[in-house]
C-alpha cells in the first residue's frame, strides 16, 4: 500500500478519535468519585459535629425541677435570630423539629450562670445540667405569690418564654435529650473490628504460614488453595446466611439468647475475611528473601524457630496490610451482618446482643421509609475518611516494605 499524505491524515484522525474516547471513558471514575463526595458532603456536613459522634441515638426523658428563687432580669440577651430569650432564667428557646418531624421546643442557648445549669433531677435527686439542643416538652411553673403556669411544647417557644419570665420556680419540667447520635454504633464498630480480628487473624496467619512455608506442594495443598480461592469469590450475603444458620445457634449455646449478636456477626465476618488475610499474608511471606530463612536454618535453628522468629517478623508490614484491609472490609460490610446480626441500633453495647455497626446504621437510616440522608451522609463522611487513612497507610507500608528488600 502506498503511503500518501491523505492516508496519513486519515490515520491521524482515527488515532485522535480513538484516544479521545478512551480519555472520555476514563473520566467516569473521576466523575463518580466527585459526585459521591459532593453528595455526601452536601448533605452531611451540617450533621457532622462532636456531639453527633458522642451522643445517644435514642432520646431520653428526664423530669427536673428548680426550687431556689431567681433574681429578676440578670442575664444578657445574646440576640440570636429566631431564638426567644428569657432574661430571668438565662436560656434561649427555639421552635424546631425532632427526628420524626414533630414540633418541639429546643434549648439553643444557656448562659453559663443560668439556673438551668443547676436543676434538680427528680428521679435521682442529683443536679442536672441542661444541654443545648435538648428539648423541653411539659413545664409546670409557679411564682412566689403561688400562681401556677402550665406550659407545653405545642404552644411554641414564645409563649413558653413569656411564662418563664413571670415564674420564680420550676415545679417540674420534662427535658428530652436530642438523640440521633452515633456513639453506640461507633463503639459497636470498634468491638466488631477487634472481635473479628481476634477470631480471624491467628487462623489466617497460621494457615498462610502452613501453605507457603511448611506444606509440600502436593494435591492436598492444591485443594486447600482452590477452596480458599473459591471462598473469596462467594458473595458476602451468602456468608450472612451461614452466620444465620451456624453462628447464631453456636453463640446461643453459650449466651442462651436466640437472636443475632455482635459475637455471631464477628464470627461470620471472620470466616468471610479468612481468604483476604491468608492471601495477603502469603504475599508478604513470599517477599521475605529466601536467604533469610536459609541463613537462619544454617545457624542451627529449628524450622519452627525460623518461621516465628525470622520470617514472620520480617513479613510484619505485609501482615499489617492484611489487618488494615480487613478493617476496611469490616467497617463497610452490611449484607453479611444484616443476616448474622440484625440491624437494631443500640446505645449500650453488649457482646451477646445485636447492635448496628456504622454501615448498618446508614442502612437503617436510608433503606426504609422516610430516609434520613443527612445523618447517613455524615456517617459516610466518617467511613470515607477512615477508608482514606487506611489506604494511605497501606500504600506507605507497601512502599517501605518493597524498599527494604530491594537491592
Amino acid at each position, binding site marked *: 500500500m502506498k503511503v500518501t499524505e491523505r492516508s496519513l491524515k486519515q490515520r491521524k484522525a482515527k*488515532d485522535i478519535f480513538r484516544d479521545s474516547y478512551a480519555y472520555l471513558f476514563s473520566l467516569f471514575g473521576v466523575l463518580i468519585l466527585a459526585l459521591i463526595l459532593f453528595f455526601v458532603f452536601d448533605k452531611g456536613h451540617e450533621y457532622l459535629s462532636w456531639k453527633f459522634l458522642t451522643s445517644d441515638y435514642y432520646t431520653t426523658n428526664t423530669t427536673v425541677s428548680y426550687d431556689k428563687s431567681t433574681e429578676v432580669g440578670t442575664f444578657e440577651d445574646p440576640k440570636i435570630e429566631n431564638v426567644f430569650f428569657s432574661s430571668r432564667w438565662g436560656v434561649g428557646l427555639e421552635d424546631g423539629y425532632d427526628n420524626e418531624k414533630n414540633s418541639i421546643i429546643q434549648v439553643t442557648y444557656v448562659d453559663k450562670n443560668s439556673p438551668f445549669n443547676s436543676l434538680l433531677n427528680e428521679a435521682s435527686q442529683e443536679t442536672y445540667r441542661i444541654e443545648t439542643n435538648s428539648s423541653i416538652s411539659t413545664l409546670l411553673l409557679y411564682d412566689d405569690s403561688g400562681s401556677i403556669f402550665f406550659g407545653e411544647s405545642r404552644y411554641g417557644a414564645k409563649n413558653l418564654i413569656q411564662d418563664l419570665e413571670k415564674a420564680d420556680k420550676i415545679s417540674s419540667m420534662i427535658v428530652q435529650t436530642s438523640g440521633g447520635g452515633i456513639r453506640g454504633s461507633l463503639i459497636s464498630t470498634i468491638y466488631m473490628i477487634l472481635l473479628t480480628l481476634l477470631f480471624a487473624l491467628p487462623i489466617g496467619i497460621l494457615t498462610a504460614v*502452613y501453605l507457603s512455608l511448611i506444606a509440600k506442594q502436593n494435591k492436598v495443598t492444591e485443594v486447600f488453595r482452590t477452596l480458599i480461592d473459591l471462598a473469596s469469590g*462467594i458473595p458476602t450475603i451468602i456468608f450472612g446466611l451461614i452466620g444465620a444458620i451456624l453462628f447464631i445457634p453456636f453463640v446461643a449455646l453459650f449466651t442462651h439468647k436466640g437472636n443475632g449478636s455482635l459475637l455471631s456477626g464477628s464470627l461470620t465476618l471472620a470466616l468471610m475475611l479468612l481468604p483476604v488475610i491468608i492471601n495477603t499474608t502469603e504475599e508478604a511471606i513470599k517477599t521475605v528473601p529466601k536467604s533469610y530463612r536459609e541463613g537462619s536454618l544454617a545457624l542451627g535453628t529449628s524450622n519452627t524457630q525460623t518461621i516465628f522468629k525470622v520470617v514472620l517478623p520480617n513479613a510484619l508490614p505485609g501482615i499489617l496490610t492484611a489487618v488494615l484491609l480487613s478493617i476496611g472490609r469490616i467497617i463497610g460490610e452490611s449484607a453479611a451482618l444484616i443476616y448474622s446480626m440484625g440491624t437494631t441500633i443500640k446505645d449500650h453495647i453488649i457482646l451477646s446482643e445485636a447492635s448496628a455497626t456504622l454501615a448498618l446504621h446508614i442502612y437503617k437510616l436510608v433503606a426504609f421509609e422516610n430516609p434520613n440522608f443527612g445523618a447517613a451522609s455524615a456517617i459516610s463522611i466518617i467511613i470515607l475518611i477512615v477508608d482514606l487513612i487506611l489506604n494511605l497507610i497501606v500504600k506507605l507500608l507497601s512502599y517501605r516494605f518493597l524498599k527494604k528488600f530491594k537491592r
Partner: protein
Amino acid sequence: MRYLNRDKCFKKAETNAKADRIVRYLLFFIAFLASVSILFVIIFIFIKGIKPFVSEYEIQGEKYRVDFFSFLFGNTWLKGNADYSIGFIIVNTIYITFLTMLLTAPISIFTALVIVRMTPKPISVTLNTIIEILASIPSVIYGMFGLGMVTGWAKNLSDLFNYQSAGGLSTFTVVLVLTMMSVPTVTMLSITSLKAVNSNLEKGSLALGASRSETNFKVIIPAAKSGIFSGLILGLSRALGEATAVSMVAGNRLNGPSFNIFSTTRTLTSTMLSGISEASGLNYDIRFSVGITLIFIIIFFNLLLRFFKKRLEKRGL
C-alpha cells in the same frame, strides 16, 4: 564463651525436631479448618435451602409445601401463602448483570489503558488512586448515593420518555450503581494485566510503523486480553452477588420479568434482603433457597466464561 556438650546438642536437636513435627500437624489442622470451612458453608446452606421443597410448613392452620418447578419457572414472587417463585427474578438478575457488564467492560478497559499507557505519571497516579478509593467505598454508601442521586436522574430521564417511574427506583438505577461498583475491580485487574504485557510487542509494533494509538489499541489490549477477561469474570461475580446497594434501589417488584429499564425490578439478592427483619418460618427459609440459586448461577457463569476464555486462548486470539 559457652562450650557445647555433645549429648546436650543431640538432645536439643531431637526436641527441636519433635516441636517442628507438632507445629506442622497443628498448622495442617488449622489450614484444613480454614479451607474446608467453605465446603461446610455451602453444604449447610444447601440443606437449609432444600427444606421448603421437602418438608411441610404450617401457615394459618394449613400445611404448605413449595413446588420446586413452579419455584424455578414462575413469574410472581408470592401467590397466596406459600407459592413462591423466582423464575422472573433469575431473568432479571441475568439481564441486569448483562447490562452492567456492557457498561463496565469499555469503561474499565479504557480507564486502565489511559492509566497505564496514555498519560504522564502524575495524572496516571492520581487516576489510579481515585480508582483505589472507589474500590474501597462500602456498598451501603453506593446504595445511599444511588437512592439519593441516581434515582433522580432515572426519574428525569423516564419523564423525558413519558414513562411513569416509581420515584426512580428502576433497572436503570440498579445497572448504574452496579457499574460504579464493578468498574474499580475490573479496572484494577486490567491495569495489572496491561502492565504485564511484554514491552517487545510494543517496540515491534512501533518499529513496523504503527502509530502509538494503533499500538495501544490493536497490540497491547489484545495481548492483555486473558487478564482483562479474568477481571471481567470477577466483576461479573461481584455484580451478581452485590446485595445492599441493589436492594436499596431496585424497588422490589412482585412480578416480572421487567425488561423496561425504567420500571422497578427485583434481583436474587434484593429478594433475600427485602423484609428480612419481619421474616420468619417459610418466608425466612425460602431465602436460603434463593441463596443456593445465586450460588449456582455464579458458579455456572464462572465456568461458562472460563470455558470461553480457554477457547480464546487455544485459538490464540
